[in-house]
């Protein structure tokens, strides 16, 4: 009993000696290494979250893009994703740095799946950590919007009717015959 009381007193004394005013305490810079990844394997969301969680984060936001079954009134059976991998990684790095310049992020994971994906599978994970939630929400939205605008990754819709077509926003009908599914 007396031992544990003395222990607590010592701890209190040690804290107050190290930091004169308790309300001025700031955590040490504790930014985790960003996780930037393109993968042919299913995205490990817990690994991405673990890479972002840190003592300085008060909020960790997770956005997942998943394969939707209906697009524009047509039924999708699956998607195939292709990337220019060296450039996609460079662009993801660049977006992570830009986001870090705009918001006080404590961690960031940007993971994109490539190859063949079935309905419901996770195609992209954006995970950001920050001291408070506002920055995490804002950075997460900005990151997924920018990923869709500038990262050289493409998806091919494999429709339920057996046809398939690359998706290129803004690229009008170019007389390309639909590719038959194997």
């Amino acid at each position, binding site marked *: 009993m007396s031992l544990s009381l003395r222990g607590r007193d010592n701890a209190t004394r040690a804290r107050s000696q190290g930091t004169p005013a308790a309300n001025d305490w700031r955590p040490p810079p504790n930014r985790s290494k960003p996780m930037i990844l393109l993968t042919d394997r299913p995205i490990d969301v817990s690994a991405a979250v673990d890479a972002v969680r840190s003592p300085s984060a008060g909020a960790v936001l997770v956005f997942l893009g998943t394969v939707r079954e209906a697009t524009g009134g047509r039924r999708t059976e699956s998607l195939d994703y292709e990337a*220019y991998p060296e450039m996609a990684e460079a662009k993801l790095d660049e977006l992570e740095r830009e986001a870090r310049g705009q918001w006080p992020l404590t961690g960031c994971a940007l993971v994109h799946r490539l190859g063949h994906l079935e309905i419901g599978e996770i195609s992209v994970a954006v995970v950001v950590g920050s001291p408070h939630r506002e920055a995490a929400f804002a950075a997460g939205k900005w990151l997924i919007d920018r990923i869709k605008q500038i990262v*050289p990754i493409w998806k091919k819709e494999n429709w339920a009717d057996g046809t398939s077509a690359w998706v*290129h926003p803004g*690229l009008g009908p170019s007389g390309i015959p639909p590719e038959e599914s194997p």
Partner: protein
Amino acid sequence: MNARVRLFAVARQIAGRDRIEIDLSEGATVADLRRALAERVPELAGILGQVTFAVGTTYADDTTPLSPNADVACIPPVSGG
């Protein structure tokens, strides 16, 4: 001089290959490459007005000069996410 061009997604599908070497005159720019590519693979002409090019891993515009043996990528509008 030569430019090595990587093709992706619909551009790769139309051309039926993922790489193509294009011979260009010295001092050629991305605009010259765009024209030369359309002549070499006429099937691509329909989309070449709407694709972007990257030199190495950096987006370029039509005025970007190409160095000999430049690694260029033909980037149709992206659709990741």
